[in-house]
């Protein structure tokens, strides 16, 4: 079998990244400054490959790569279709933005641990890419463990209280991974196969089998812990708030989304729509997600620490994604049917939350500001950073034409089509709650005066502009700009064919068999 160059890329994305992780470790002994360069270059190359993969998948078709030439179901197979090509591009784009940002902030925050930071970071990226490209369910578990373990270590890197946060995450994350592994074991005991495509062929006659059904429940619960779906979110607020900010951005923007991807993959590629319709589990997920949306927002309102507030907001946003996933089997529109709203919000949330966490990191970098009440006058001191925060925040609230608005409209349309009017109300209420907690921050940054500050009539106020370095500012502004630009791009429907291919693949949306 002769493969074109692009068809080699799925494995190269992983191998290059894994080798780079060890190169960083060795190079770091000689020269600490080389770590960032190697990591940045690797992720850039990976991103370019991912873009080629996406293009290939859209124009030619799904890529199958057999590791070592062993044909499935015996060998491990990497399968890249429209769904994982799309996720891969998101993962690597945000990883690239975060690594750019990390150059100055890590040198400032963790000067002793630069080498280990970038080694772990590269392993994290490897794990995330691995989960995304693999077509083998046990291989997926391995990669989930790789990215989780590196995430535990990265969260703990600040020491002190972060150790506790990391430990909580480690315990809960391991339980989640165990559930996932149990699910795999159950399926293996029934079918004797680990290849996803192979499983999806063997399973249909066994759908009534209790072991197969129990396996699915294990997958759902295990991954729900990993993606911090309410009420299994308890590890998330600590982990997100005590990690270095670029890791918070990765955690919130990518890591929990990749777990969602894993759930989507298991639900629709290992199992099928026919199985999902057999059990009311997606309806149940909708309700859980709806509760998560509201309770996450309410808890966010109660926070004073900005990063903690953003963390609870992530719980709420994961609810959006899961609500959209839950509705995916009951919608048939060409536009908002199937997985389209969910996949759309995965990208949108990565942009918004990535930007917000990086801005929170900027405040900590500049002045060790953690609490919202301390942000008085920042609007004048750090105008660009605060402007970026504002753009991302109004996206979260869902002011048009931002990405948050587009997601909101699509999810509401999906709710309407499936006849679940209560969720429309939940979505609207949630955007109001978002307004409450984000506007509080914006108001403090721009409008509130410090206690000692006199009302000055002059144009230029006493406080001088004191911005973060350019290598941190550019990632922040890029994400903030994308929050608005992508919103318009979604509205023009240019990227929708990608998501339409995903629906075609799984027989969802307009491809569903009525």
């Amino acid at each position, binding site marked *: 079998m002769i493969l074109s160059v692009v068809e080699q890329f799925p494995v190269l994305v992983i191998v290059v990244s894994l080798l780079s992780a060890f190169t960083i470790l060795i190079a770091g002994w000689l020269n600490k400054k080389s770590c960032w360069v190697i990591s940045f270059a690797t992720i850039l190359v990976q991103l370019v490959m991912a873009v080629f993969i996406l293009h290939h998948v859209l124009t030619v078709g799904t890529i199958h790569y057999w590791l070592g030439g062993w044909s499935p179901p015996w060998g491990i197979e990497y399968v890249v279709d429209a769904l994982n090509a799309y996720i891969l591009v998101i993962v690597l784009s945000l990883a690239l933005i975060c690594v750019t940002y990390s150059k100055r902030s890590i040198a400032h925050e963790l000067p002793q641990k630069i080498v280990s930071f970038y080694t772990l970071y590269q392993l994290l990226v490897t794990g995330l890419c691995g989960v995304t490209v693999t077509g083998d369910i046990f291989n997926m578990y391995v990669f989930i463990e790789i990215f989780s373990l590196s995430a535990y270590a990265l969260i703990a890197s600040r020491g002190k209280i972060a150790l506790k946060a990391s430990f909580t995450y480690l315990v809960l994350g391991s339980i989640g991974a165990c559930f996932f592994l149990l699910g795999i074991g159950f399926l293996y005991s029934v079918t004797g196969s680990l290849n996803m495509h192979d499983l999806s062929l063997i399973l249909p006659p066994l759908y009534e089998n209790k072991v197969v059904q129990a396996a699915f429940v294990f997958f759902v619960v295990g991954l729900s812990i990993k993606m911090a779906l309410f009420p299994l979110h308890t590890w998330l607020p600590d982990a997100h708030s005590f990690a270095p900010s670029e890791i918070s951005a990765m955690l919130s923007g990518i890591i929990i989304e990749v777990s969602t991807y894993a759930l989507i993959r298991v639900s629709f590629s290992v199992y099928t729509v026919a199985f999902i319709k057999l059990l009311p589990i997606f309806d149940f997920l909708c309700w859980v997600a709806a509760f998560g949306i509201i309770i996450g927002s309410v808890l966010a309102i109660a926070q004073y620490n900005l990063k903690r507030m953003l963390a609870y907001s992530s719980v709420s946003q994961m609810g959006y994604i899961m609500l959209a996933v839950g509705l995916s089997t009951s919608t048939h529109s*060409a*536009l908002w049917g199937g997985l389209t709203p969910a996949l759309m919000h995965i990208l949108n949330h990565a942009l918004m939350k990535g930007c917000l966490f990086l801005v929170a990191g900027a405040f900590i970098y500049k002045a060790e500001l953690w609490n919202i009440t301390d942000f008085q006058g920042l609007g004048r001191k750090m105008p660009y950073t605060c402007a970026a925060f504002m753009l991302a925040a*109004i996206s979260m*609230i869902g*002011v*048009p*034409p931002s990405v948050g*608005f587009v997601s*909101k*409209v699509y999810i*509401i*349309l999906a709710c*309407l*089509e499936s006849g679940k009017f209560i969720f*429309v109300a939940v979505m*609207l*209420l949630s*955007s*109001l709650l978002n*307004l409450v907690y984000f*506007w509080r921050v914006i*108001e403090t940054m*721009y*409008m*509130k*005066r410090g206690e000692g500050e006199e*009302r*000055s*009539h*002059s*144009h*230029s106020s006493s406080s001088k502009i004191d911005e973060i370095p350019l290598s941190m500012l550019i990632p922040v502004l890029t994400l903030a700009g994308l929050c608005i630009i992508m919103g318009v791009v979604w*509205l*023009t*429907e240019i990227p929708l064919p990608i998501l339409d291919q995903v629906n075609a693949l799984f027989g969802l949306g307009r491809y569903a068999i009525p």
Partner: protein
Amino acid sequence: MMEQLIPIPYRPLLAILCPAIGSIFIVLFGKRPNIRESWTMLASIAQFLIVFSMVPIVIGGNGEPIKYTLFTAFPSVDFGFSVDAFGLIFAITSSFLWILVSSYSIGYMRSLHEHAQTRYYFCFCWAIFGAVGVALSGNLFTMFVFYEILTVSTYPLVAHDQTPEALFAGRKYLAYLLTAGGFFLAAVVITYYFTGTTDFVTGGIPNLASEASRTALMALFALFLLGFMKAAWMPFHSWLPTAMVAPTPVSALLHAVAVVKAGVFGIVRVVCYIYGVDLMHGLGLGLVLACLATFTIIVANLFALAQDNLKRRLAYSTINQLSLIIFGVALLSPEGIEGAMMHIPFHGFMKITLFMCAGAIIVVSGKKNISEMAGIGKEMPVTMIAFTIGALGMCALPPTAGFITHHLFVHGCEEAGGTMSFFPYVLLIAAILDVMYFFPIIYTAFFAKSEGSSGSKINEAPLFMLVPIAITATVSIIFFFYPDLFHISELVETAVSSLGGVHP
């Protein structure tokens, strides 16, 4: 000449873009006040000229709108503009008054040495962007987008003072109006779900009645009304008086014209172009809306009586007049709708005069309460004469524009017949209440003796402020004799005649 300069279909887009481009230059020249302010003036004049150049085309085209589509957002929902006669009325009003208020702002902000003036002009541009966008948008979806931009961009203007009071006002403003935005969005999406379109169609969306049940239509209308909380109908009005802590030019243009009129404009759009007059009749919603409006008219006037702060009193008067416009539409008769459409510019000109006078008094003497204004008419004769003209207009007395529209409303009631013929009496009571709270101001200003008696030295506001006041006051009178100024009455006739389905 003009056709060659700017092709007709691009004009709506350009009209919208004027303030957006202006805002960029305002930020770039933030450190040089004179150049910054010239950009505001330039953008406002350019916008008005472009908007006005569309008038002959729309009137000549027999109600055929100018369409321009940017892109398609959902099947059969375009993000685009459709300029018809009714939209132009609102666009002309906002853009013309923006020119005057820009000049007024220069005088006001500089006299009071306000802080953060660049932010102020920047946000003002985006607010106008939103308002004119609402006026020119061709469907509910586009309208919603601009409606939300309008809400968000006015927040920094309301909270401009940055005092705890101003911050509270800003928060309240957002809480009300973004909640309303949520209802509006729900209403838009549900409309789209029922009919598959959100376009404004003269006479209503044809398949709305057949697709949705009677109860659903009622509930949907309630959602729309809640969505247009910007129209400040009671009991959802209290954001408006609170927002009066904003600098006076903001109160003048945004809270007498752009923001609140966007709400009323939306209600008229929904009644005439989404539901259509026939369906409104069929559902009996006209009477419900009329009752709601008259309730607001009377109660707002009673509240106004109790205010001593001039701007707050004017705010309640605005609430009253906005409901008058809603009332006109609720009559569902040609003359009622004509009156409602005409009252949008007429009330705009009169109320902006009043607000600008209130601002001039603050600049010159710092007085905000009516009880302190004894004898101020001798000090500031031009301002107070303009104020008197505006006040006469509010009380619907000739020779002002207010008389014409009230005349139309009364005719509209007769035309509608039935229960509606009872309503002229309500209007009469409202007018009497109007007189009761406006005339004491005039009396205090001209005839009451001032305590300090600092002598009757004339001490007027700067010319930057005085000229706009004089212009709007004069225009309020010209409208009485010649309602076709700016082609307003022609546009109204075009709009109403194209509604077609209107019947007594």
